[in-house]
C-alpha cells in the first residue's frame, strides 16, 4: 500500500471522528444542562440553575462548529451512502441539541422564579417526567454515538409516555389553580416547565428518528406512537 491514499483515507476518517466527538461533547453538555435544570426545580437549588444557564453559550458555540465542520466535510469529501446520511443528520441533530439546551436553560431560569409558595404543590409528577425525559435523552445520545438503531427505536416508542404524563400534570396543575388563586403564579411557571420538558423529550425523539434514518436509510413513519388515548400503554419512569 502506498502512503498517499492511506493518508487521505485516514484523515477523512479522522475528520469524521472529530465531528462525532464534537456531537458527543454537545450531547453530554445538554444532558448535563437538563439534569441540572431538573435538579434546580426539585431541590430548589439556585447553584444548579446558574450552572445550567452558564453552559448555554458553549452549546451554541458547539452548534456553529459542528455546522461548519459538517459543511466542510460535505464540500470537500463528497461523502456517499451512510457517511452522507450521517453528516446530513448531524446538521439536523445539532440544531435539535441546541434547542434542548435552550429549553433546559429556560427551565433553570423559571426554577429561580418559582418562589417559596410552591411548597404545598406536589412535584412528584415533575420528578417522574424529569426522569423519563432524561432517560430518553440519554438513550437518544447513546444511539447517536453508537449508530444504534435499536436504541433509537426504544426512544421513539417511549415518546408516548412523556406525552401522557404531561397531560396528567396539566390537569393536576389546573386543579391547584382552581383550588387557590394564590397558586396561579407558581403553577403557571410549573406548566411552562412541564411544557419545556415535554419539548426536550420531543427533540430527543427527533434525534432518535434521525439516527434511525442515518443507520438504515429508512424514515420512521411520520405518525409517532401518541399518548393521551384511552388505551394507555406507558413505560413507567
Amino acid at each position, binding site marked *: 500500500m502506498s502512503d498517499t491514499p492511506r493518508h487521505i483515507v*485516514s484523515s477523512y476518517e479522522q475528520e469524521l471522528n472529530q465531528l462525532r466527538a464534537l456531537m458527543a*461533547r454537545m450531547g*453530554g453538555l445538554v444532558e448535563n444542562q437538563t439534569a441540572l435544570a431538573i435538579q434546580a426545580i426539585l431541590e430548589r437549588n439556585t447553584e444548579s440553575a446558574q450552572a445550567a444557564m452558564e453552559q448555554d453559550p458553549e452549546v451554541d458555540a458547539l452548534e456553529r462548529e459542528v455546522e461548519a465542520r459538517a459543511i466542510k466535510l460535505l464540500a470537500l469529501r463528497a461523502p456517499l451512502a451512510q457517511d452522507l446520511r450521517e453528516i446530513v443528520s448531524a446538521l439536523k441533530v445539532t440544531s435539535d441539541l441546541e434547542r434542548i439546551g435552550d429549553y433546559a436553560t429556560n427551565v433553570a431560569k423559571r426554577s429561580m422564579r418559582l418562589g417559596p409558595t410552591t411548597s404545598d404543590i406536589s412535584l*412528584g409528577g415533575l420528578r*417522574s417526567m424529569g426522569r423519563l425525559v432524561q432517560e430518553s435523552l*440519554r438513550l437518544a445520545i447513546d444511539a447517536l454515538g453508537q449508530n444504534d438503531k435499536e436504541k433509537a427505536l426504544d426512544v421513539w416508542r417511549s415518546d408516548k409516555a412523556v406525552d401522557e404524563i404531561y*397531560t*396528567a400534570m396539566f390537569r393536576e396543575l389546573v386543579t391547584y389553580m382552581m383550588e387557590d388563586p394564590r397558586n396561579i403564579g407558581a403553577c403557571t411557571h410549573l406548566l411552562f416547565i412541564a411544557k419545556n420538558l415535554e419539548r426536550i423529550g420531543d427533540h430527543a425523539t427527533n434525534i432518535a428518528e434521525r439516527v434511525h434514518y442515518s443507520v438504515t436509510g429508512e424514515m420512521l413513519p411520520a405518525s409517532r406512537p401518541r399518548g393521551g388515548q384511552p388505551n*394507555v400503554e406507558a413505560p413507567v419512569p
Partner: protein
Amino acid sequence: MSLWRRRPSDADPLSEAAPGGGGFSLPGLLDLLPHPVLALDDEGMLRHANETARAQFGDAIPALLRHPAISQAIRTLTPGGTAQVDLPMDVPVRRALRISMRSGTAAEPGRRGLVLLSLLDRSELEAVERMRSDFIANASHELRTPLASLIGFIETLQGPAADDAPARIRFLSIMEGQASRMRRLIDNLLSLSRIQMHEHRRPSGLVSLAPLARRVADGHEPQLVASGNTLSVEIAPNLPLVAGDSDQLSQVLHNFLDNAVKYANRPGRPATIVLAVQPSQAGVDPSGDGVVLSVADDGPGIAAQHVPRLTERFYRVEDGPAGKAGSGLGLAIVKHIVGRHGGRLTISSVEGQGARFAVWLPRAPVPATAAAAQRAGLRERT
C-alpha cells in the same frame, strides 16, 4: 459503535505487547484488574473498557465519558498529570461516582498517549444518606394516621369504655388491624430501602422464571379463594434464563398478584386474573431478547391520568375503592427491582376493562458453561 471504532495508527499503545513480553496485551492486562478502568487515547476516544468496568457500568460508559465535567478534565489534562472528578448520574439508576484519571507521556512532545480513568462507585454511601432522610420524611407522615387512631382507641378504652366488654373486643380488633398496617408499612419501607441501596449493582444469579411464577401463584391460592377471583397461569415453553435475583423477582410477581386480588374485583363480580410468562416479541417489547412477566385482570382498570404516577411512593388513586388501602409502596418496590435488573415496567389499562402490569427482563448472556448447564436441565441457580 462508531465512536468506539479503532483508528488506524502506527504507534498504537494498546495493540503493542506489554513491556516485558510474555504475550500479554495491554487490554488483557487491564481486564485482569479487579477495579473498573477505562483507557482513552490522546483525543479522548474510548479505546478499552476493562471487564470490571463493562460489568459494572456497561451502558452508562458513553454517557459518563461525554459528561462535561469529565470531558473537560480529559481535555485539560497535561501529559503525566492527574485529575479527580466527583459525579452524580441520574439515569438509568441514580449513582454517585468518583473518577480519578492519569495521563501517560508520549514520545512526541505535547502528546499524552494513553489516559487511564479509574472509577469508584460511591452510590452506596450516598444511598444510605438519602435513605435516612427519605425514611424519616415518609415514615413519619404515613405512620401518623394509624398511630393517631391507635391512641384514640387507647384513650377510649382507658376512659369511657373501660368497663364495656363488647366495645373492648371490637376496639381491640380494630387496633390490631391498625397495628398490623403499621408493621406492613415499616416492612415495606425497609425492603424498599434495601433494594435502593443495591440498585446500582446488577444481580449476578441466573433465574428460570417458569418455576418461580408457579411457586408465587401457588402461594396466592388462599387469598384467591378468599376473594373469589380466579387465576390462570400461562407459561410458554423453553423460556431463556434471565440474570436476576430470584427473591426480588418473586416479590415483583407477588406485588402484582396482591394488587390484582385487592383491586380487580367489583362488587358481585369476581375478576379473572391471568399470569403469563412469555418470550418477548420483536416490535412490541423493548429491543432485545428477553422474557415478559405479566399479570392482567378484567377489573375496573385505572384512569389514564394515574397510570404514569402509580410507581411513586405513597401515590394513591384518590377515587380508589375505600377500605383497600395498601402501603402505597408495592409498585415503587417493583420499579426499583426492575431498575436493578435492567428491565422495563409497563402498565397498560383501559378504564372499565382491566389493567395489565408487565415486566420485560433481558435474557441472561449465555456463556458456554451456563448453556451446557441449561441443556443438562439445571433449572435455577441463584
